[in-house]
């Protein structure tokens, strides 16, 4: 293996988390295999901070393709662009983070180039015979292991939270290369799909079923006013506030935000249950959440049985400290990133 590409997406000045993971994974494998690791960034007026940040991931090369037509994602233009790049550069692997964009783009590029694709990979194992990629299927009963036919780059999208994000000292041989879109026969045809309207969602108003982070309160909150604490926590974590049946029946929260059998069934990546004992009807509505953090005063509360982490304490004491600590960590995180 001689070259690994990592596809980089950014929002604002920040590289998407899944892409940070993909870049880190690519750097790790490239290091082990003595291959070159290239980060590929497509866009228009790419913020210098994104490129600077990539240096800190330890990539050998950043390949930038800037063009006005790439400012907004469009399936057809991005496919055309990637096709041109991958035909010229031919890496062994193109690693992408599993994002909404990758789900749209990766299969299309794969079909265009006739090269293999494995989505939502959980483990990459480069062997002498070629790359072996593991992914889960028939959740949660099986894993599938795929290999690639040796034609063109192997495209892999990496499932979220599989790889660690690592920042390593920048390499001396770091290079930044610009691809001239003018030099490439990039067809700048308009995409047949037009975006008519894009409405920005405010995290706290996102439909519960779509929320990535949910902060829920129950009878243990003791009063409706105390839900202000949950709103603060939701703001810090970028989440939405929900409630148990008890809290809704006591008219502390509107019925729309009830989680459970009679309310909404949710499966966010993080569910924080505050003062919810975890009656079976509630558990049914949220047990498929990826991470469950429960705060409760009763050590025998059923919620602790399914919680990834249980916090034994009073929400009134724990939450203010928690909010403050997360807020501080968030500020520190941002400062570190901008430094």
């Amino acid at each position: 293996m001689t070259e690994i590409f990592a596809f980089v997406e950014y929002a604002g000045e920040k590289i998407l988390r899944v892409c940070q993971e993909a870049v880190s994974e690519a750097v790790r494998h490239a290091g082990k295999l003595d291959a070159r690791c290239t980060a590929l960034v497509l866009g228009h007026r790419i913020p210098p901070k994104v490129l600077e940040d990539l240096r800190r991931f330890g990539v050998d090369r950043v390949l930038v393709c800037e063009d006005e037509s790439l400012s907004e994602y469009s399936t057809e233009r991005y496919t055309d662009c990637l096709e041109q790049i991958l035909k010229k550069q031919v890496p062994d692997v193109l690693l992408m983070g599993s994002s909404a964009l990758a789900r749209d783009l990766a299969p299309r590029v794969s079909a265009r180039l006739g090269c293999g694709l494995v989505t939502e990979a959980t483990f990459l194992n480069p062997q002498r015979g070629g790359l072996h990629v593991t992914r889960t299927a028939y959740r949660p009963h099986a894993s599938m292991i795929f290999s690639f036919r040796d034609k063109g780059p192997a495209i892999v999208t990496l499932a979220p939270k599989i790889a660690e994000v690592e920042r390593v000292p920048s390499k001396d041989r770091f290079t930044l290369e610009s691809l001239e879109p003018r030099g490439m026969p990039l067809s700048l045809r308009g995409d047949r799909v037009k975006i008519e309207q894009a409405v920005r969602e405010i995290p706290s108003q996102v439909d519960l079923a779509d929320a990535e982070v949910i902060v829920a309160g129950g009878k243990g909150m003791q009063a409706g006013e105390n839900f202000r604490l949950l709103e603060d926590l939701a703001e810090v974590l970028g989440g939405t506030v929900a409630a148990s049946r008890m809290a809704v029946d006591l008219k502390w929260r509107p019925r729309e935000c009830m989680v459970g059998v009679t309310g909404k069934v949710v499966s966010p990546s993080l569910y924080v249950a505050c003062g919810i004992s975890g009656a079976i009807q509630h558990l049914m509505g949220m047990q498929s959440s990826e991470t469950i953090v429960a705060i409760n005063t009763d050590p025998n509360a059923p919620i602790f049985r399914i919680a990834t982490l249980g916090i034994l304490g009073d929400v009134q004491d724990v939450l203010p400290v928690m909010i403050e600590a997360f807020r501080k960590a968030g500020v520190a995180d941002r400062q570190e990133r901008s430094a």
Partner: protein
Amino acid sequence: MNETGRSIVITVAPVHDCQNPVVLDPLRGRINPACRQWILNPPDMIALEQALRIRDRIPGFRIRVVSIAPPSAERALRECLAVGADEVVRVWGEGVEEADPHGLAVILAAAIRVRPFQLILAGWRRADVEHAQTGPMLAELLGLPQITCARSIEMGRDSESIRVEKRIPGRMLTMSCSLPALVTMEKGPLLRYPRYPDRRRVSKIQIASVDLGAIGLAGVPPPLVQLERVTPPKPKRRSALGAATGMPVVARLQRILSGGAQAKKESNIRPCPDKVSTLKTVEHLLKEKLVLLP
């Protein structure tokens, strides 16, 4: 065939019903075919409902279901006829079950190309293997514009364009697209329930099987990715037993000796009576990446 010739194609996949665990054949590294229980892919059923709704609003569309399915799935496919599809095409041939997502897309493209169409609808992924590849690949093979993971579709009055709503993290997009096009559905209203007389009516219908030769294919296209093995999933890393938990050695040893079973209940509970312990817990949450700050 309908005079106006307007038609909507739905691709429907029979998938394993994941309510029943799959049984693996460890020697061959494949799934034991005897454990298979076919249902129609739920996201594809959402797509079918969208097509029916389009026809309810603008009559005259012919709804054509194209499915790569074994003969045993015929009964399930009749459901599509019962709710109102005009035609079901079942494609099957030797070696089809071993086809990769690209191979399936090639077969579907060949089967769909036979007749003119305005719109192809599909579920955004198969509910069992969750590749989420065949839709965009099909669009590419047929040279169509695509919109993936849509929430709703509205057909223009002239039947020449569609408006589609789609959610990406943080934004709700309204997109428009000229036809023909391919849309994959992520969410939407569930498939309607068939009326009893309709179910009776379709119960006798034989769904004709189309083999690969009839749609101009010599065989299953060679796979781009080769399935090496299907294995049981790796057990989750038990970080509760690792040194990183910060528990005393004796306690950890006890937990390991007890098989983790008894201690597990308390192991993930951290008492936080004061500020210091709460701060420590927050630190732990961030360190273990249980909480990711935006």
